[in-house]
């Protein structure tokens, strides 16, 4: 094996620990500004409120910006945090210190989100949006009206935190606490995005089937995203409590949740900086508006915000941050000029199984890696697959051909677990995996690609290679948020990604969004993502579709490399007959849901039933 040179100069950067400095500044600046009369109490209150919105915005961003799930009742969770703080720290309640209130607020927000999300997130679609509106109303009209919780019409009094014996009861104090929390949560957000968790969110937002093929348990990760979002919203609520001192249920209604949506979408989904800026701007500018245009303009800010939201969603869904990024990219592309040739003949790196993944049960050459028996799938009135079966032996390339609508991709989906069959079994490496979900099959060593490219297209090539290694870094949620215990895994992941990039010859495209590559290039990246965890079985769905004949020839060589150099087993759906004849050891032909022929490729393609399936009856 040739030594792989790691492009270290690109990945090592001078790291200055900014977090401690940022925390110190956040804690001290408001006090200093207040002493030098730059900041009075009403202004501090306004900024403190913006802090609450910024943190609540970050909570919605985790859910909507990263994981792509909509909550329209996010402020209900902020309310839960505020009233929990009251119940834990209040003088007529538990009287615990403020920090306990903060922890309890995060916990309560997380708990309610978990309970609501558990049924709502198992299904695909916008159900969470409807459920969270119900949460918004049930919270503000019912739960928070209970006197014990919401304090009745006078509201709930939240005692200030104490620093020693000094009560931190001024708006300036609350602002300082808010800024410290904001800095900490921003750092946590950075950690999250760079972790397996953040990558799992991104890929499931992009395509849930692709996420599952990377080994992401989709329902579980949607639930983690919502629970995390609830916890952060709870923190925002705790801050809201100490900023105002008294909270009432009405401030956490549906209207406020909509205002939060404005901030997150205008700032830019997925952009923490954009959201924080938007939170402070929307907090400050109404007062500026009144100062400039007089009292008549009071209340117009909400109309302006909502109108902006309308226009933004329609014409710039990525918000200001997205517009900014697009402009920067345009400039870079114009400056770039050079358009490098697309590499199509990758040198596949032999990476070995990642340390974090279970080693697949080895099978002897000639024994079956995969065996599907008697599989049937019905879509309404259409029998897509009808009692089909196939067997793939270790170290071979098996091709599956058939006219459009023959049921090839359906068969693929049954094998990978994306679809559950009405009848039939799938055995993989000697184990019955018929009732296993797709992410578990991926963990066992099943890799697959998709007809329409199974990658997160808005993410870079490098990010996709990291996403594909979801299973290779088995650290938990807390490690993802703090980076404690995740660094070792991340280092291994990045090494593998670098080696794959090098091997594929995609080094200069590492930061390019996958969607900007040509179809053929995307296909190679997809194959790289599939191989980066060294799966036992590689399943390719029409890999040569949309490729030039020359590129298809390169692909044939790549397939043979997979078998001979990497010792992989390959199952592919293909229409390109020369490619199949040049690579496959065995060929199955499907028509109308059945396997009509299988055997030695050259022999199979000449059989009359196969010719008939492709060309129809010969008319005399």
């Amino acid at each position, binding site marked *: 094996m040739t030594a792989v040179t790691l492009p270290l100069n690109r990945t090592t950067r001078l790291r200055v620990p900014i977090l401690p400095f940022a925390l110190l500044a956040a804690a001290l600046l408001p006090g200093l500004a207040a002493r030098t009369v730059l900041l009075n109490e009403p202004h501090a209150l306004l900024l403190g409120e913006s802090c609450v919105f910024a943190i609540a915005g970050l909570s919605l961003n985790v859910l909507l910006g990263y994981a792509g799930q*909509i909550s329209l009742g996010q402020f209900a969770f902020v309310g839960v945090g505020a009233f929990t703080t009251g119940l834990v720290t209040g003088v007529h309640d538990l009287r615990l210190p403020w920090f306990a209130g903060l922890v309890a607020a995060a916990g309560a927000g997380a708990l309610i989100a978990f309970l609501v999300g558990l049924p709502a997130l198992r299904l695909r679609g916008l159900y969470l*949006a409807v459920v969270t509106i119900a949460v918004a109303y049930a919270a503000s009209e019912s739960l928070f009206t209970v006197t014990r919780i919401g304090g009745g019409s006078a509201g709930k009094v939240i005692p200030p935190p104490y620093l020693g014996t000094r009560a931190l009861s001024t708006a300036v104090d609350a602002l300082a606490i808010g800024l410290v929390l904001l800095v900490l949560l921003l750092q946590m957000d950075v950690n999250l995005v760079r972790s397996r968790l953040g990558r799992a969110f991104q890929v499931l937002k992009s395509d849930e089937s692709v996420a599952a093929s990377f080994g992401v348990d989709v329902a579980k990760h949607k639930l983690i995203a919502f629970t995390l979002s609830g916890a952060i919203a709870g923190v925002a609520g705790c801050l809201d409590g100490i900023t105002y001192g008294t909270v009432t249920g009405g401030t956490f209604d549906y209207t406020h949740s909509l205002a939060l949506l404005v901030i997150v979408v205008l700032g830019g989904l997925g952009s923490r900086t954009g959201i924080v800026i938007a939170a402070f701007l929307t907090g400050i500018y109404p007062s500026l508006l009144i100062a400039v245009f007089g009292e008549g303009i009071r209340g117009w800010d909400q109309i302006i915000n909502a109108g902006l939201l309308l226009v933004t969603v329609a014409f710039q869904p990525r918000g200001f941050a997205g517009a900014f990024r697009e402009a920067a990219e345009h400039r870079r592309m114009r400056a770039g000029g050079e358009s490098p040739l697309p590499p199509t003949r990758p040198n596949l790196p032999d990476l070995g199984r990642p340390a974090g993944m279970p080693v697949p049960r080895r099978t002897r050459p000639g024994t079956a890696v995969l065996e599907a*028996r008697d599989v049937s799938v019905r879509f309404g009135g259409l029998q897509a697959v009808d009692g089909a079966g196939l067997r793939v032996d270790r170290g071979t390339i098996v091709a599956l051909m058939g006219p459009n609508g023959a049921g090839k991709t359906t068969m693929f989906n049954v094998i990978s677990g994306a679809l559950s069959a009405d009848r039939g079994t799938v055995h993989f490496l000697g184990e019955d995996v018929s009732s296993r979900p797709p992410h578990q099959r991926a963990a066992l060593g099943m890799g697959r690609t998709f007809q329409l490219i199974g990658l997160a297209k808005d993410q870079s090539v490098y990010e996709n290679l990291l996403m594909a290694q979801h299973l290779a870094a088995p650290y938990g949620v807390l490690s993802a948020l703090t980076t404690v215990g995740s660094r070792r895994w991340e280092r291994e992941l990045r090494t593998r990604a670098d080696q794959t990039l090098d091997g594929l010859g995609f080094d200069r495209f590492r930061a390019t969004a996958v969607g900007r590559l040509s179809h053929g290039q995307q296909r190679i990246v997809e194959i790289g993502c599939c191989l980066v965890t060294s799966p036992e079985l590689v399943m390719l769905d029409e890999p040569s579709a949309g490729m030039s004949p020359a590129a298809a020839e390169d692909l044939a060589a790549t397939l043979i490399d997979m078998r001979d150099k990497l010792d992989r087993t390959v199952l592919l759906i293909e229409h390109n007959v020369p490619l199949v004849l040049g690579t496959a050891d065995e060929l199955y032909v499907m028509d109308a849901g059945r396997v009509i022929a299988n055997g030695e490729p050259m022999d199979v393609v000449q059989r009359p039933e196969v010719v008939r399936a492709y060309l129809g009856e010969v008319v005399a």
Partner: protein
Amino acid sequence: MRGPGVIQVIALGLISAGIYALFALGVVLVYRGTKVLTFAGGEIGTAALYVTAFLVTDHGLSWGVGALIAVAVAAAAGALFEFALVRRSVDADPVVTSILTVALAATILAIELNHFGGSPKQLKPPVHGGVNVDGLIVSPVQIAAIVVAALLGFGLQAFLRRTDFGLAILAAADDPTATRLVGVRVSRVRMTLWAGSFALAAIAALLVEPTVGVISPGYASRLYLGGLAAAVIGGLDSLPGAVWGATVLGLVQAFVIRYLRVDVGGLDFDVTLVLLLVALLGRSLLPQLRRRLSPPREAVA
């Protein structure tokens, strides 16, 4: 047991159900045609009430004429929304369009709050009196809501299945490109759907309002939640399902409020939330359950 009897509770449940069903039909109509969930119906309904109040209370038109104009305005707003925003969105994804409807609702709500936030508007009911059902006076408008909801629920279903235009709606939802190729103007179909959905929201709000008489910002949104929930409970893509979902929701709410003796406000919202979660849990677990109950796979030799 004292207090209102079972019949009265059922009547109260059906009254709510009628309103929920009308909103739910608007939700399902757009969902079936475009896979978009619309969140704007509540505010469209409230806005229609303000328009009616403007025409009837401020300018002395009769209730019927005012309501008719308001429904027409709502339908026009739906068509305009589709034409000016939905169709021109850079991201034609159903999720993005759904958020677009949230943005529309937020915009209308902000305008309502700004213009009428301080002073509730009055709107007199079109007719007085009503039918006595077990001690409950049911207004003719409420009866109309139930009848209209049931008729539309099952009538629209027949319209979708039996007429060319109805089939075009279903086809456009399944495969817009293929539908366009056989000569259907998909954009016009969609425009009609949005207009119909917004008109239904206006009708729903107009039929609930006479029994209350006072309009405030965001007024119909709380009822619209019931419509959204009913649509989800009914399976989201079935018009009769929406009517059944609304019936279940309305009845369970009425019974819980009547017989669950706790001193908590907003119980109807709690019921909505719980029913929604139960319905979603059922939908995700049913296929698994069915598979487990089905006869075991034949052993393969």
